[in-house]
């Protein structure tokens, strides 16, 4: 009788322990999801969702630590599991949102690149076609300096684009286009001045 009781008790304990087993797989899955989100630059392109996921993970870790300290009989990882599920879902959402946002900015940067390149080509053409007399030669030489700067900045922006710094690249392409457009305007003005003098 005593033996039966012992077995029954042991069985109950085992059952209880099994029910509230430490959510190691869930923890690993949530961490992996966070790592993937970070790798997708979710901390930049989907910062709020990423922070929420990171917060949920930290809360889950705290809950796990609390349960680890509790007696085996009293352990309950349900809250931790719930938080880990939440962390994983939010991290996955952050990663996909980041990917979409990044793709959008990349697209914008590529369009800006095309526009900047076109503006530089237009400036080069205008410069080569501009009449070079004593009144314009120096102006045009100076504008060549402006154009060289625009070209060198274009190369820097292209490096930023290929290394995945899309925001930086986008801003730089826009500045290059503005400068190249200004060169075209200045060429027209220099040529006009020559005609007027």
């Amino acid at each position, binding site marked *: 009788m005593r033996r039966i009781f012992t077995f029954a008790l042991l069985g109950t304990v085992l059952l209880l322990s099994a029910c509230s087993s430490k959510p190691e797989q869930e923890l690993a899955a949530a961490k992996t999801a966070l790592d993937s989100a970070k790798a997708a630059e979710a901390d930049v392109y989907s910062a709020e969702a990423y922070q929420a996921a990171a917060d949920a993970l930290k809360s889950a870790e705290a809950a796990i*630590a*609390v349960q680890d300290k509790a007696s085996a009989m009293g352990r309950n990882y349900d*809250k931790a599991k719930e938080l880990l599920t939440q962390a994983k879902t939010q991290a996955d959402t952050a990663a996909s949102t980041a990917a979409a946002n990044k793709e959008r900015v990349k697209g914008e940067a590529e369009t800006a690149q095309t526009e900047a390149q076109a503006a530089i080509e237009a400036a080069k053409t205008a410069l080569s076609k501009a009449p070079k007399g004593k009144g314009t030669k120096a102006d045009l030489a100076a504008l*060549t300096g402006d154009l060289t700067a625009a070209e060198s900045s274009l190369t820097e922006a292209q490096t930023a684009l290929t290394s995945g710094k899309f925001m930086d690249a986008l801003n730089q392409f826009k500045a290059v286009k503005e400068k190249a457009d200004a060169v075209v305007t200045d060429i027209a003005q220099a040529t006009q001045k020559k005609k007027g003098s």
Partner: protein
Amino acid sequence: MTLLAVTGCRQMPEAEWAKLQALRKEIRQEGLGPYAPDLYQEFETGFERIRFDYALQANKSALFRDVEQLRRQIQDEQSRGQLLREQTRRQKEQLKQALRQKLDSLEPSLQQRSAATLDPRERQMIAEIQMQVKQAKTIWNEGDYLRAQEQVDQIDERVAALEDHVEELTRRYRDPDVRMRWQAMTRRTIRWSREQGKSALVVDKLNRRALLYQSGELKYQFTIDLGWNRYPDKLQQGDGATPEGPYRVVEKKGAGETAYYRALLLDYPNAVDRRLFGRARRRGQVEPGARIGAQIEVHGEGGKGRDWTQGCVALSNADMKQLYELAYVGMPVTIVGEVSE
């Protein structure tokens, strides 16, 4: 009843905890942490400790909770967070204003500087800075002041490189031997004017002015534009520099004889110029086939406030009219880097 009272007193401080979480979210959303990294780190560490303690107490039955200790912890952390928020908001605002002021002042000064020079290298450097200022402004408009500050730091480095470039170009302006030579040339010209009782022109490149002496007395001062390559002495055709040395007017070109209103043709290149050019050619300092140049004049159509000629000295038409009337063939025109007062 006693049990209910004790349990009631030991309710988890949910409202306080929610308030603290909201404060933390606010600090994060405003991106305040990086403005006081140490204080922020301290706050974050405290927050994580509370998160754990909260979970720990929540896991206990109400009878065994130490809620008061937790409540105090949350209140302390709330105070620390509020202090952090206020301090960093102030810092962020200060940085925002300082950057705005700097970027706003940079744009017109660069524009002015670019308009004042036609030196392609200098223009290139200025244009690079201008483009970076645009980027910094975009980042500033996005509210990322720390990244804008990084851009401004790079801008400062580029501005310093630009200053170095100009300093390099003007190095000989600080050379005592060169300055002494210019001073001697200027003195000789003024003495000649006094002794001969005639007019003589002295051109001061650095200060962009032409000084007309009559019988050794300074009578007129004109503002001038120079060769686009403002600082060096002329060495060869196409270098855009205005020659330095004692020259004389060899021809007066009136209305219809020049595209530049009125002109005084100088005897550039003189014997010294030819000797220096020959030496530079022998030393390989000029490209094969390079020519020394000619047709250096003092002419009109100037007054543009920037250096744009190929090496001539340009005056506004009104000034040129006055100078032309006073000038004569044979008049000395001494061009120096700078006239010492």
